[in-house]
C-alpha cells in the first residue's frame, strides 16, 4: 500500500517532517559499479539467511559483475551444483529475482558453482580448480550461528574453517571480506568501538585485576585436549558427551567474558585473520540480523538465531520480559546487512577500506527494549482475541493482560513461585490418581507435563537472550560504514543504501518483522516442535 503524502516520518525525532530529503552525494573514492565491473567474486555461504539475500542483491543490482563463483557444500546425495540450482535459487528471496534478471540461463552464464566445505583444507576446493579460478575477492558469509552447540561444532567451522579460508585466499592471491558478528565484543556495556585491537582481544581484558593474555593457539590446544578427554571419559562418566562438550564451550567462553560459544569462536576466527601478515581484509560485524525491510520483499526471514524465538514466545502469550528499561536491542534488517557487505566489498576492491565495519542501528536510531515488549503484548492481544482453539479463559488472559518489563530477580522469583504451584497441582493430581483411578486423572497429568515442558523450553530460550536484553547494553558504533557511504560514487548511491536512521521501527516491527516471522518462521518452528527436533 502506498500512502501519498508530503510528510516523511523522522524515526529519530519521532515526528513528521515535510519536504524532500536532500539528494545523496558521494565523493566517488569508492566506485562500486566500476569496482564490480570485470571482477570476480568468490562467495562462501550463499545458502544461509544473509548469503541468499546477498547473492540476490549482487545479481539484481550489479549486472556489470563479470563473474561470480559460489561455493556450495554437498548435502548427502545432492552435489553442490545440484543444491545451488534446486535449493538456493528456488528459495523465496531468489526465485523472483532470478526471473526478473532473465532466468536461470543468465545465472548459469554468470555464476560458477564449486563444491567445497569449510571444514576441509582450502575449504574443500581442489588445488587444480583453484588455479583456474581468477578470483579478485572472497566474501565469506559462512559460519555456524548456534549460540551454544557442543564446542567442536562451533570451533571446527568458525576457527578451523577460517584458517582454511585464509589459506584459500592466500593461494588465490585475493582480498577478503569476512562476515563475523558485532557480539564478538562479549559482555560489555555502552558504545563499542570499531577501532579496538582484534588480535589478543578478550572481553575481560583491561578489567581491574585481569592479567591473563588471550592467544588462539593456546585456546586450540585447550580445545583439542578438552575434546579428547571428554570423549575418552565416555565410559567413566555417564553424562552425554555432547552435553559436556556444550557446557565446556560455554564455560570457557564465559571465563574470558564472551556471552556464548558462538561469539567466542567467531572472535578467534577474526583474530586468525588479523594475525595473518600480508592479507588485505575487512571484517564485517552485523548485530542481530532480522527480517528484510525492502529487498527482495519486505518481511523475508529464515533466521532462527534472530529475535524470532522471542517474537514467537510473545505471540504465545508470555507476559513478563526481563529487559533493560534504558537499553536498545541491536537489530538490523538483512537487506541492509547485504548492502553493507556490498559497500565494504567495493571499498576493499578500491583499497579504501577500514579493518572493521559494524552493521547496526542503535547508534543512530535505537529501538528501545520496552517498546519491543509493548509490541509483543499487542501482537499477543491480537492473536488471542481471534484465536478459536485452546482454553477460552487462557485466551482472554493472554488477550487482555499486557506484557510487563521486569528485572531478572523478579523473573527468578516468579519462576520459583510457578514451579511451586505446579508442584502442588502435581501432588494433588497424584493423590487424585490414587483415589479416583488413573483413567480419570491421567489426561490432566499429561497436560501438566506438557505445560511444564513448554515453560522449561521458554525459560531456556529467554535465558539465551538475557546477555543481549538485560545483563548488557550495547551500542555498536557504525562510523566506518557511514564514512564508506559518503565515499561512494553518485551512481552507486542509486543502487546501494545504508539508512538505518530512516527505519520506522513501529511499522517495521508490527507490519514487516512480526508478520514475516509468522509467515516464514512459525510453520518451520511448529513442524520442528511436532517432530521433536
Amino acid at each position, binding site marked *: 500500500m*502506498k500512502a501519498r503524502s508530503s510528510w516523511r516520518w523522522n524515526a529519530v525525532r*519521532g515526528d513528521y517532517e515535510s519536504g524532500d530529503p536532500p539528494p545523496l552525494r558521494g565523493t566517488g573514492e569508492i566506485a562500486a559499479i566500476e569496482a564490480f565491473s570485470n571482477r570476480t567474486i568468490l562467495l562462501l555461504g550463499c545458502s544461509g539467511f544473509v548469503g541468499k539475500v546477498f547473492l540476490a542483491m549482487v545479481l539484481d543490482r550489479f549486472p556489470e559483475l563479470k563473474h561470480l563463483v559460489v561455493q556450495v557444500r554437498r548435502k548427502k546425495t545432492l552435489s553442490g551444483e545440484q543444491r545451488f540450482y534446486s535449493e538456493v535459487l528456488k528459495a523465496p528471496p531468489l526465485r523472483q529475482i532470478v526471473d526478473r534478471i532473465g532466468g536461470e540461463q543468465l545465472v548459469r552464464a554468470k555464476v560458477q558453482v564449486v563444491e567445497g566445505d569449510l571444514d576441509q583444507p582450502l575449504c574443500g576446493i581442489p588445488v587444480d580448480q583453484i588455479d583456474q579460478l581468477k578470483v579478485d575477492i572472497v566474501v565469506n558469509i559462512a559460519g555456524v550461528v548456534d549460540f551454544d552447540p557442543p564446542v567442536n561444532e562451533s570451533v571446527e567451522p568458525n576457527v578451523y574453517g577460517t584458517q582454511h579460508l585464509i589459506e584459500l585466499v592466500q593461494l588465490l592471491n585475493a582480498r577478503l571480506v569476512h562476515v563475523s558478528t558485532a557480539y564478538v565484543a562479549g559482555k560489555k556495556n555502552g558504545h563499542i568501538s570499531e577501532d579496538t585491537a582484534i588480535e589478543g582481544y578478550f572481553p575481560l581484558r583491561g578489567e581491574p585485576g585481569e592479567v591473563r593474555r588471550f592467544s588462539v593457539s593456546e585456546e586450540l590446544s585447550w580445545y583439542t585436549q578438552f575434546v579428547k578427554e571428554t570423549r575418552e571419559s565416555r565410559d567413566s562418566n555417564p553424562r552425554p558427551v555432547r552435553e559436556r562438550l556444550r557446557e565446556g564451550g560455554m564455560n570457557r567462553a564465559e571465563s574470558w567474558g564472551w556471552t556464548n560459544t558462538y561469539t567466542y569462536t567467531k572472535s578467534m576466527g577474526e583474530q586468525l585473520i588479523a594475525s595473518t601478515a600480508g592479507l588485505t581484509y575487512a571484517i564485517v560485524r552485523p548485530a542481530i540480523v532480522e527480517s528484510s525491510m525492502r529487498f527482495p520483499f519486505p518481511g523475508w526471514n529464515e533466521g532462527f538465531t534472530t529475535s524470532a524465538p522471542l517474537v514467537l514466545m510473545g505471540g504465545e502469550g508470555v507476559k513478563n520480559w526481563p529487559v533493560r528499561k534504558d537499553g536498545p536491542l541491536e537489530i538490523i534488517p538483512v537487506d541492509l546487512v547485504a548492502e553493507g557487505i556490498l559497500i565494504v566489498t567495493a571499498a576493499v576492491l578500491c583499497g579504501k577500506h577500514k579493518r572493521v565495519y559494524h552493521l547496526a542501528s542503535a547508534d543512530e536510531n535505537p529501538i528501545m527494549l520496552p517498546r519491543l515488549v509493548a*509490541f509483543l503484548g*499487542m501482537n499477543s492481544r491480537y492473536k488471542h482475541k481471534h484465536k478459536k482453539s485452546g482454553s477460552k479463559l487462557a485466551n482472554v488472559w493472554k488477550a487482555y493482560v499486557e506484557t510487563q518489563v521486569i528485572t531478572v530477580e523478579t523473573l527468578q522469583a516468579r519462576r520459583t513461585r510457578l514451579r511451586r504451584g505446579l508442584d502442588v497441582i502435581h501432588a494433588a493430581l497424584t493423590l487424585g490418581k490414587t483415589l479416583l483411578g488413573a483413567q480419570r486423572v491421567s489426561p490432566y497429568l499429561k497436560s501438566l507435563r506438557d505445560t511444564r515442558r513448554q515453560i522449561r523450553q521458554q525459560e531456556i530460550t529467554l535465558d539465551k537472550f538475557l546477555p543481549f536484553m538485560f545483563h548488557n547494553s550495547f551500542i555498536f558504533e557504525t562510523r566506518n560504514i557511514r564514512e564508506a557511504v559518503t565515499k561512494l560514487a553518485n551512481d552507486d548511491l542509486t543502487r546501494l543504501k545504508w539508512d538505518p536512521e530512516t527505519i520506522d521501527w513501529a*511499522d517495521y516491527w*508490527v507490519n514487516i518483522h512480526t508478520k514475516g516471522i509468522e509467515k516464514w518462521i512459525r510453520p518451520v518452528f511448529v513442524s520442528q516442535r511436532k517432530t521433536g527436533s
Partner: protein
Amino acid sequence: MNKAAFYDLDGTLLSCNLVTMHAYYARNDRSPLKSIYQFSKVLVSVPLLFGLDLYSRSLFNVFSFRAYRGMHRDRLIGLADDLFEVTLKPSIFPQAQALIETTKELGYRNVLVTGTLDFHIRPIALHFGIDEVICNRLEFRKHVATGRVLPPLLAENEKARSIREYAVQENIDLAQSCAFSDSTSDVPMLSVVGQPVATNPSRRLRRVALQKGWPILELRESVSKFPPFLRPAKVL
C-alpha cells in the same frame, strides 16, 4: 491517459466512523481501569460529535482527532490490525468488494481518498487490494500524538484539491474517472470527476444527486445495481 476510481471510506465502503474507532482504543487501553476512564470520555463526547458532524465534517474531524492526544504512535500502529478485525471488517458493506473489483477490472486505478488516519487505512487497503491511499496523518511529538492533524486536513474542498493534484502527477484523465461517496461534505470531491456516484447517499446527498443527475448506488444491500458505466460491455 489513465483513469481512476476515487473512493471515500466512512459510510461509502463500510459503516464505521471515527467514534467507533475511538471507542475501540478506549476499550483496549493498557489496563482495565484506564479502559473504563477512556471509554466514559468517548461516551460523553458522542452527542457533541454527532451535532458537529451535522454542522461541518471538517470541524467534526478536528474535534474527534483530539481524542488521540497523548497516545503513543506504537500503540496506534500495533493495534491497527485488531481494530480492523473487531470494528471495521464486520461493517464492510456487502457489495463494497465487488464494486472495487469491478472498477479494477474496467481499468480504473483504485484510490482511497479519506479523512481516516494512515494507520487505520493500512489493513483496510490490504483487505480491499487498494494500492493508493490519500489520507490524514496525526501530528506527533517524540512519538506521542498531539491531537492535531498534519495540514492540510483532508475533507471537503481539500479532497477535491488533492484529487486534482494526484491527477496531474499520475497523468489521470478526471473526465474519464469516477468517484464514490455517501456524504454532502464530499460534493466537491464528486464534482471533480466525470462520473460521480452517490453511494449509500444521505438524504441531503440524494437530493443533490437527483438535481445533478448523478447515479445513485446502494452497497448496503446484498444485490445492487451498478451504474451503466460500470457494467462491462456485453460480448455480442
